[in-house]
């Protein structure tokens, strides 16, 4: 009894402190949630009004941020394509270089998780190859390790520059609060919320936007190369064209239109083509399997759209690449053009260009770019074009290049696709040019953006993409909230029926727990994701558990015949150790998830973590205070409702 008196007086003094602490915590929680509540109630009109006053950004910075999976948006992980980047900076290319790179590629294909540069070093050392011969280095004697380390440095710098350029591009594109972040030394994360056209945003972000002005090879040279490719293809697959490549076969299946060449308006192939199909000329196929896939379009070499994959595959075949000269590049047009047959059918063609490897001029010289529709008086009337103006250096080179090659054809190449290939009529002295070949004005405007922001220093791949439409996001919020509410009501019903008065305390602390977790999310500017909502629901389960542990202990003590007060005291103090042990292990898993999880999983881990922390605050501390204020107050209870 004496002991109980002590407990009582101690607790009563404590109670004031406890009330104070709870008041402070509650005050903080309400204060942090006010902006979110305000924001949720705003109509679109009021939002615009606030935006004009410049207050919206401030308000938005203090609310619970919704993850992309809840508000819709796009999450991308970009990675520098190291193999391509390395090729780009190689400054001397020979047969041995190609063999070497092919070998490294084969190794890399087998084990893509390994480091490409390490593989380069190992392979070079194993074959006692001097990398300084192919890659920029101080002199020929530089050892392989230094050359590779130099490549690695260049690669890392390229990623940093790429991040800047992507940031510029997105700024010009106009997305609110984009997340652009370097991860490790070759990845960039981009997160864009609430965009309408993910495809367009993706193009703007990851198109290299390398603009090149390249001279075309002349016709005789081109014909000679085609003959050589024909011979090479014949060597690979003697006799049977259908075995040549699956793309031809599958495309053949998919296209039921077999139009004979003679039906095509004015597009006569050399003699033999009289009775062949557009797809593959069976007669020509035996003798000239590559030519059989191509069509003569007057000035240009056409590739029927159906044959695109087949031609592309042949051109990338290692055997074919081997026989091609080093100073040649073979490029497709970016767009197809339609030709009418005599029967009025239209057939789509890509154009194939044989151009110099070395660009006469690149997009670095672009000073200004402007997308517009061709003016009424000009030849390009109504067509989307991009007007480009070059800097002083570029203007000089451009004048020299055009002056020296009058009457030759020049391809304007964007990201390895030929936009146009006009004949140079005069020397251009003023550093101006226009680019055509866009599907619509929007595409031209996007090119304007990327040309202004600059080309990416290295080719970049999208290795992860998660896009959520806004409607699905809204749907997810609704479902999450609905599940949480149903879950809460069921749990409340069950606990209150089972524990009666004490059950009400449990539910109050449970609701407080959720409230606190939301408050901390708002104060930390953390993001609430759909898995985060699941974490919230799970937190409810954990919060109930703490109270169940306590109440069961209190019941035990009470049934043993102890007083109300000492049952409560003992129940709480004995359950504390169990609650600690049980919650700390879950805390460990939450931390591990946070460390190793990606994206949405982190959202789950964050909520779980804070859910456990506040479980001690509300499930134990506040619950105990409420309980004690009933049992130790001025009119202490002498019966427990539990």
């Amino acid at each position, binding site marked *: 009894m004496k002991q109980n008196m002590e407990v009582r007086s101690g607790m009563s003094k404590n109670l004031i402190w406890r009330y104070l602490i709870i008041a402070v915590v509650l005050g903080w929680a309400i204060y942090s949630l006010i902006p979110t509540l305000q924001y949720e109630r705003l109509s679109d009109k009021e939002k615009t009004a606030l935006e004009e006053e410049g207050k919206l950004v401030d308000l938005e910075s203090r609310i619970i941020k919704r993850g992309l999976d809840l508000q819709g948006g796009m999450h991308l992980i970009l990675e520098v394509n190291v193999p391509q980047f390395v090729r780009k900076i190689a400054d001397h290319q020979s047969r041995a270089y190609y063999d070497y790179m092919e070998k490294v590629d084969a190794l890399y294909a087998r084990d893509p998780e390994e480091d490409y540069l390490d593989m380069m070093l190992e392979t070079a050392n194993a074959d006692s190859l001097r990398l300084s011969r192919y890659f920029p280095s101080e002199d020929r004697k530089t050892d392989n390790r230094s050359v590779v380390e130099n490549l690695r440095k260049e690669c890392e710098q390229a990623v940093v520059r790429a991040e800047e350029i992507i940031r510029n591009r997105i700024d010009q594109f106009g997305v609110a609060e984009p997340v652009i972040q370097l991860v490790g030394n070759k990845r960039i994360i981009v997160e864009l919320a609430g965009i309408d056209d993910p495809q367009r945003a993706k193009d703007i972000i990851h198109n290299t936007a390398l603009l090149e002005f390249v001279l075309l090879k002349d016709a005789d040279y081109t014909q000679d190369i085609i003959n050589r490719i024909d011979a090479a293809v014949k060597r690979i697959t003697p006799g049977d064209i259908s075995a040549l490549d699956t793309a031809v076969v599958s495309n053949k299946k998919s296209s039921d239109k077999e139009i004979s060449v003679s039906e095509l308006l004015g597009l006569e192939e050399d003699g033999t083509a009289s009775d062949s199909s557009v797809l593959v000329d069976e007669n020509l196929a035996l003798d000239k399997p590559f030519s059989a896939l191509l069509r003569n379009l007057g000035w240009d070499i056409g590739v029927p759209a159906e044959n695109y*994959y087949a031609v592309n595959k042949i051109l990338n075949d290692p055997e074919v690449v081997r026989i091609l000269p080093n100073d040649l590049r073979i490029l497709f047009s970016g767009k197809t053009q339609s030709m009418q047959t005599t029967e009025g059918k239209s057939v789509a063609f890509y154009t194939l260009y044989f151009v110099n490897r070395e660009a006469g001029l690149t997009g670095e010289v672009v000073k200004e770019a402007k997308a517009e529709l061709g003016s009424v008086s000009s030849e390009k009337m109504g067509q989307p074009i991009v007007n480009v103006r070059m800097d002083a250096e570029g203007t000089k080179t451009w004048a020299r290049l055009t002056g020296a090659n009058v009457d030759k054809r020049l391809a304007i190449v964007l990201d390895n696709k030929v936009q146009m290939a006009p004949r140079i009529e005069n020397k251009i002295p003023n550093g101006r040019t226009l680019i055509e070949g866009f599907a619509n004005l929007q595409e031209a405007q996007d090119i304007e953006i990327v040309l202004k922001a600059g080309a990416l220093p290295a080719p970049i791949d999208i290795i*992860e993409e998660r896009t959520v439409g806004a409607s699905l996001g809204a749907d997810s919020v609704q479902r999450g909230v609905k599940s949480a509410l149903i879950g809460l009501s069921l749990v409340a019903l069950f606990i209150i029926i089972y524990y009666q008065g004490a059950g009400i305390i449990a539910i109050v602390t449970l609701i407080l727990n959720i409230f606190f977790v939301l408050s901390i999310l708002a104060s930390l500017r953390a993001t609430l994701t759909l898995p985060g909502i699941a974490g919230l629901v799970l937190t409810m389960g954990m919060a109930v558990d703490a109270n169940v542990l306590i109440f069961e202990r209190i019941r035990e003590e009470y049934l043993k015949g102890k007083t109300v007060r000492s049952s409560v005291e003992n129940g709480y103090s004995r359950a504390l150790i*169990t609650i600690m042990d049980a919650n700390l292990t879950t805390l460990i898993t939450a931390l591990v998830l946070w460390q190793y999880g990606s994206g949405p999983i982190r959202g789950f881990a964050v909520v779980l973590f804070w859910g456990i922390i506040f479980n001690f605050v509300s499930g134990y501390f506040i619950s105990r205070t409420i309980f004690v204020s009933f049992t130790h107050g001025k009119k202490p209870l002498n019966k427990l409702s539990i």
Partner: protein
Amino acid sequence: MLQIFKKANYNIVDKRRLAFIVSVVVILAGVVSLFLQGLNFGIDFEGGAKMQIKFNTPVTAEELRAKFTVTDFGIPEIKSSGVNEYMITINASESVDTDEVLKSVLGTMDYTLLQVDKIGPKIGHEMRSNSFKAILIALILVLIYITVRFEFKFAVGAVIALAHDVLVTFAFFSFFQWEISMPVLAAFLTIVGYSLNDTIVVYDRIRENIKVHKGKPLKDVINLSINQSLSRTVITSLTTFMVVLILAIFGGQVLFGFSIAMVVGVIVGTYSSMFVAAPILIAWEHKFKEKEEKKA
């Protein structure tokens, strides 16, 4: 006072052999299933593309499938996810250009993209190894924690119970070929935490009772402890079970994998804390005693 168990005094410990048989049968069935059909790793871990598309004009899954037969992409998995709404999954070892797929297959159709997940195979494998690393690290940390807080034999019991839970859950996922995605993996880790929670509550009681009832055989102490914490175990499991079941029913497709893993995990975790974790202490004790007797 409403009580589920009035003066609970069930002989749970002696049911451990039956429990052992049940567990072994389920795990064996799981292992057989693992060998026969493996686990259904989703694109998160395999790489590939998943698109949820709502069509604005009526279309059947058959019609969609037919559209894919004429392309190079292979026939993807097409599942209905609502009225005129489909989930198209393309598993690929090479990167798939989803834009290309959409353009060439659905070109002229009138549709809205609800969701696109596209994972390169490289990052998928990375995620897989990271995730297994995460589970392993979590297990080791927990083992250390319990060894510090209790005794080593408790830690062994807890970890065996945990391994049991994860194995049984895997067995279910293999047997029903539910997809293992990133959220499901998070659920596995949560199960680890949850099952431990249950186990530790029982262990706590055992530790306390060993001090109170000195001289009582361990078996009886353990049985007493399980009985004392029985109503807590059942009530907590019941409430948690309710919330995850509701998530599974109302949470929608995105959370389904997570919720169903949790539903299985809650049941298995509760079972294992009573029938696996605690009895292992007895088995350990028996071993230990036999050795001592031999020494003597």
